[in-house]
Each structure stands twice: as structure tokens, then as C-alpha cells.
């Protein structure tokens, strides 16, 4: 994976110094909270319900074991012994003190990490496919391009006060494992008929209050014009995105209001001008970065056999292990979704264990997924059993990847000042109701996502089953939605009827799964059955 050179290191160090000065000025009263707030947000520091919260960037979801170990140590040293992995491949700490924040950033900088632009009206962490560099179906590893994007977007002087936040995802396969079309800009690396790689740009997707699937704005931008095209896209947004209404300020509203064709026209005009300016990093820079993402020295001639005699291990292999492009290897997902647990949370000890396992068994590399799980991308099949045993001993061998208890949930009203309802207790109750793994496997793939407010950080619009927590006259209430999907067949979930209490929504989901089991045709997932038979049979079962 990418390693900083002295330039990269001095940039994060300069940022730490800048923020240390800003914090000192805030504490001394030289700047007001209004003036300080955007500055701390651009270093990932929120003021949440109980304390400051720090969101640390994990660029394109990739980190080394040393970095993972530091994340565990930070949890112990500055927080209350745990961290929360997020739906944008980042990690959050919930109990941070402002006066510690500069030291935390300095600790992060010592392992080539940061919290730069993880909040604020600027370009956020660029996310990618958690199987990048390991999956057989990618046409190229998207992460070098993501790294190029990271550097271009870091401290970009023109785009530091956008109308609103800006989220970019980049993938390189037809299978979309990063919800790419639900981003402000989604880039899919594709091949044209001549076999050349290009960037397919989707602009104007997003969730939140008004979910939208991004339309294609340019089907093929040569890689050596990617940065110039991004400049054009961002400049049009910076100039013409709405600034009159916070809830209408994302680029999806601009693209929707002026139309994709007009947005494309404006971008093309800007793009033609920008191409004359020589802003694009040279091919040599992309090649230099690619050098860090070469195959990590896979062995050849390894066995593809897996000894499945331990039935619990066999279940875990079936559920949590995916095919690797290299014979003899596999991609293993550590699901941070124990029965009745808090989705995406991991203790400092668990984080350090995962770091150790990565170092020993996965070429020193881990990934964070937007489903709030951890991936060890390069595990020898021969080592899978050892890995599973070590995970099992630490309560991390939940064999529920993509099953109903593999829930995506935002922190909700237990932690977040934006929330209207709690989301974690709902996740816990659902997880407990469906605790039986055999039952979950019978139900098959169900992507269940819970948001505690309309901002949709839990991605409920993209859930096969989505839950939105609302405030109904001071009481928490939950709306149920079906039929969302974030893959190549991206669709937005639709609400099925009046909302429920916390216990009511769990019952409703159970009834929905009963309908699915009764109605499904061969090979259909819940999502497929829903798309085929529609809402009516579910409504009838749930509302009577």
C-alpha cells in the first residue's frame, strides 16, 4: 500500500501544527466557536451528544497493521477503549477532549494517518472497493487512482468552502461494492473497445433527505485527464450549487435542477479551459503510486483445498470468505456484528488483535468496508482455519456477512446530535430476534440498514430492508422501507406504510421475512422476491 514520502509527511505534520494553533486560539478566546467550527470540522472533530467525536480518515479503506494498532492505542489512550467503523470506511472515537485533539493528530501523523477533511463543506475521504487488489473481477486496482485523488483533494484551495460536503467513490469492477452511484461523484474505471482504461464519471448521487442515483455525465475520461475533469466538476458545483438552503445544497440537487445535460455542458466548457492549464499530474506520478500497489509477493503453487471438517468453521468459510484472484488465497471478512452487539464497534483489544492477524496472515494489510466490517484481503487458504480460531476466541468470528444480522447502523440518538431516534437498540433487537444462524442462512442475503435521522448515514435508502428513525411528537418512531440496493442494480427503497415502535418494527421485519419464505422462487433473495411481487403482500401481512 501507499507509503508517504517526505512531502506527504510534511503536509500532515503542517496540518497538525496548524490545528494545534487553531485549538490554542479557540481555548484562549481569540476565535469564536462560529469561526472555529469549520476549522475543527475539517480536522474531523465534531461536538456530539456526550463529548467531542473524532473521525479519522482511512483513505480508500486501506490500512496497515501498524496503523490499525495505532487506532487501537488511541482508543485506549485518549478515548474509552473502543472505536466505531463507519459507512465511509473511516473510524470514529466518541469521547474525545478538545485539548487532546492536536496530540491525537500528531500520533496519527506518526503512522501516516490523519483526520483531514473528514467533515466540513469540502471534499471528504475518497472511498473504494474493500476487495481492491484482491478481487478477480476488477479490471485494475482502483486504489492508485484513489490515492491520486486523495492528494489532489487535500487542502485544495478553491474547494475548501463548497456549498456542502462532497463525497467521491472509485471502483474498477462491474460489481459495485462501494455504493458508487450514491455518491456526489462516482468513478468507475472501465475499458473501451481498444482495451484502454478510462474513467466513467457518475455525478449527482446521494442519500439523505432526497436520495438520487447519479447519472452518467461522462462515459470515458482518459486517466491522464481525470484530475482536470474533477476540477471542472467541482468548479461548476462550487459556483452554482445552492447556498440558500442547507438541505438543497448537495450537487445532486444542482444536477437534478439544471438537468444532467446542462451540467455536462457546463463541465465540458470548464474542462476544455482547464485542459489548457497543465494541472494534471504526469503519468510518472500515477506509475509511482501504482508501484506501491503491486501484488505483495503471493506464493505460487499453493493448495486451494480447505479442510471443512469443523462445521462452525465451514459455515464461516461459506459466509465470510470470498474468492481471491490468486490461486491458493482468499478474502476474509471479519464481521463486527455480534448478536446483540453494536454494529461496527470494536474494542481496543479487538482492534489490536485484528492488526496482529493482518500482520501474520494477510501481508500486513486490512480494509474497512462501508458495511462497517473489516477485511483481511490476502489470506492463504491454508491459514483460514487458524485465522478463524483466533477470531472465534475473541468473539470476532460472526459468520453473518450479508445476512440479516450484518446490519449497517449509524450511531443514532445514543451518540449523534443530529439524530431523531436511536438506531443501535433496534439493530440489537433485530440481531437477537434472528440470532439463530441457521435461520439467517435460510433467509439468505438481506442487507438491512438503519438510520437514526433523514441524513441517512446508515444508508437506509439502499437497504433491501431499510429503517428510518423519526421523532413523532417526542417519541421515537421507525419507518420501514423495502427494495433498496447499492450494487450495480442500484435502486432506492420505498416506504411501505405507517411507522412502528421499536418493538413493532422488529415484529414487522419478522413478518416480512415470513412472506419472503412463503413466496420466494428458486434462487431469489429477499430483494428479488420483493421486486417481483411488490409491496402489497408484505403490507397485508404486516398491517393486517
Amino acid at each position: 500500500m501507499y507509503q508517504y514520502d517526505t512531502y506527504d509527511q510534511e503536509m500532515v505534520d503542517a496540518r497538525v501544527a496548524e490545528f494545534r494553533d487553531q485549538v490554542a486560539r479557540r481555548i484562549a478566546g481569540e476565535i469564536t466557536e462560529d469561526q472555529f467550527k469549520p476549522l475543527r470540522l475539517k480536522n474531523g472533530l465534531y461536538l456530539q451528544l456526550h463529548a467531542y467525536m473524532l473521525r479519522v480518515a482511512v483513505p480508500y479503506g486501506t490500512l496497515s497493521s501498524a496503523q490499525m494498532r495505532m487506532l487501537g492505542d488511541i482508543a485506549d489512550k485518549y478515548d474509552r477503549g473502543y472505536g466505531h467503523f463507519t459507512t465511509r470506511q473511516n473510524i470514529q472515537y466518541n469521547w474525545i477532549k478538545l485539548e487532546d485533539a492536536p496530540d491525537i493528530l500528531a500520533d496519527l501523523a506518526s503512522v501516516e494517518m490523519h483526520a483531514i477533511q473528514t467533515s466540513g463543506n469540502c471534499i471528504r475521504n475518497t472511498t473504494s472497493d474493500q476487495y481492491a487488489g484482491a478481487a478477480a473481477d476488477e479490471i485494475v486496482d482502483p486504489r492508485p487512482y484513489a490515492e491520486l485523488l486523495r492528494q489532489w483533494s487535500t487542502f485544495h484551495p478553491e474547494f475548501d468552502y463548497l456549498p456542502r460536503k462532497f463525497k467521491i467513490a472509485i471502483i474498477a469492477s462491474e460489481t459495485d461494492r462501494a455504493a458508487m452511484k450514491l455518491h456526489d461523484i462516482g468513478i468507475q474505471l472501465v475499458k473501451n473497445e481498444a482495451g484502454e482504461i478510462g474513467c466513467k464519471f457518475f455525478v449527482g448521487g446521494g442519500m439523505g433527505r432526497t436520495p438520487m442515483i447519479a447519472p452518467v455525465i461522462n462515459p470515458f475520461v482518459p486517466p491522464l485527464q481525470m484530475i482536470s475533469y474533477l476540477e471542472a466538476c467541482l468548479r461548476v458545483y462550487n459556483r452554482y450549487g445552492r447556498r440558500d438552503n442547507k438541505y438543497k445544497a448537495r450537487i445532486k440537487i444542482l444536477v437534478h435542477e439544471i438537468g444532467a445535460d446542462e451540467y455536462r455542458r457546463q463541465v465540458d466548457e470548464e474542462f476544455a479551459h482547464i485542459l489548457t492549464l497543465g494541472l494534471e499530474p504526469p503519468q510518472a506520478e500515477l506509475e509511482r503510486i501504482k508501484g506501491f500497489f503491486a501484488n505483495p509477493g503471493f506464493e505460487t503453487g499453493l493448495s486451494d483445498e480447505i479442510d471443512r471438517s469443523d462445521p462452525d468453521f465451514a459455515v464461516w468459510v461459506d459466509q465470510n470468505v470470498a474468492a481471491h484472484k490468486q490461486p491458493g488465497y482468499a478474502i476474509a471478512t471479519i464481521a463486527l456484528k455480534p448478536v446483540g452487539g453494536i454494529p461496527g464497534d470494536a474494542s481496543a483489544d479487538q482492534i489490536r488483535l485484528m492488526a496482529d492477524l493482518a500482520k501474520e496472515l494477510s501481508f500486513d494489510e486490512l480494509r474497512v468496508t462501508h458495511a462497517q466490517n473489516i477485511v483481511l484481503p490476502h489470506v492463504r487458504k491454508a491459514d483460514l482455519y487458524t485465522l478463524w480460531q483466533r477470531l472465534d476466541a475473541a468473539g470476532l468470528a460472526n459468520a453473518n456477512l450479508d445476512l440479516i444480522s450484518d446490519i449497517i447502523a449509524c450511531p443514532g440518538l445514543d451518540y449523534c446530535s443530529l439524530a431523531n431516534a436511536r438506531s443501535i437498540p433496534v439493530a440489537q433487537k433485530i440481531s437477537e430476534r434472528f440470532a439463530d444462524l441457521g435461520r439467517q442462512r435460510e433467509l439468505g442475503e438481506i442487507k438491512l440498514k438503519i438510520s437514526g435521522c433523514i441524513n441517512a448515514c446508515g444508508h437506509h435508502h439502499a437497504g433491501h430492508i431499510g429503517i428510518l428513525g423519526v421523532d413523532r411528537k417526542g417519541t421515537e418512531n421507525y419507518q420501514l422501507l423495502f427494495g433498496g440496493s447499492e450494487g450495480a442494480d442500484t435502486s432506492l427503497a420505498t416506504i411501505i406504510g405507517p411507522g412502528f415502535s421499536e418493538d413493532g418494527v422488529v415484529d414487522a421485519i419478522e413478518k416480512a421475512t415470513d412472506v419472503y419464505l412463503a413466496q420466494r422462487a428458486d434462487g431469489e433473495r429477499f430483494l428479488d422476491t420483493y421486486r417481483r411481487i411488490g409491496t402489497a403482500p408484505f403490507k397485508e401481512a404486516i398491517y393486517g
Partner: protein
Amino acid sequence: MVEDCLRYRNDDPVTDPAVTVDSFADQTNATAVRIEPGDDARALLPHLSRIALVEVNFPTYGDGRGYSAARILREHGYAGELRAVGDVLLDQLSHMRRCGFDSFAPAHPITAEAADKAFATWPDVYQKTVDGRAPIWAKRHG
């Protein structure tokens, strides 16, 4: 010493009042123009040779349209004074400079010393813009 206007040019400041973008084309004697956030800086491109001062107003620091306006003007060869006025705070100076501003008239005055320190925040820069600084990728590859 606290300054009303921080200026980083060697020529004499323009004393003409700045007119609006809308009226500039017709006011053939005007040499100074003021861009509001909703104005299109491109409207000035045909007239760059007779402009000596462009003021870009930041009514609130969170409205970043002025950064694009400045950069567009510099990209098209505008060489006159480019001044950020209004809610301009110390922590924005560095980025503003990188977008081509060479003078600043903040509503709340900033000392020259503090400004110098702000400009020195970044030892290097990742992006090529209009400030002439070589981006890191250029330094890496000669």
C-alpha cells in the same frame, strides 16, 4: 501592526471606486470592479486589460464562490490587483493567496505578522494553481 488592507504588490494601489460587474461593461472609464458571490467572473474576461483592481466580496467566510472567481480571472491572464474583502479570516488567507488574491481587506483587521505566519502554513502544495508554486507532483518528477 494591524492593517486595514494587507497588500502584496509593488505597484500603487488603485483609488477608483469599484463598480458592479453588471455596470462595468458600460462604464468605460472604470478601472476597478467588485464581484459579489452570485456574479459571474467570466463576464469580466473581455475587459481584463482595463481592470486594475478586482474586489471579491466574501459576505460570509463560508461562501466559497469567491475562490473560483479569483482563480478564473488569474487563469485567463488577469494581472491586476485581486483583493479579498469582507468576512476574510486568518485561517483562509493561505488558500486565498493560492487562488490568486494578492491583497486582503478583512472586516476584522489582521496583523501583517499573523498573515505572514498564515501564508507559511504549507511548506509544499499538492495542486497546481495560479500562484506559481510548483506542486508536489512536479517536484517529485523534476
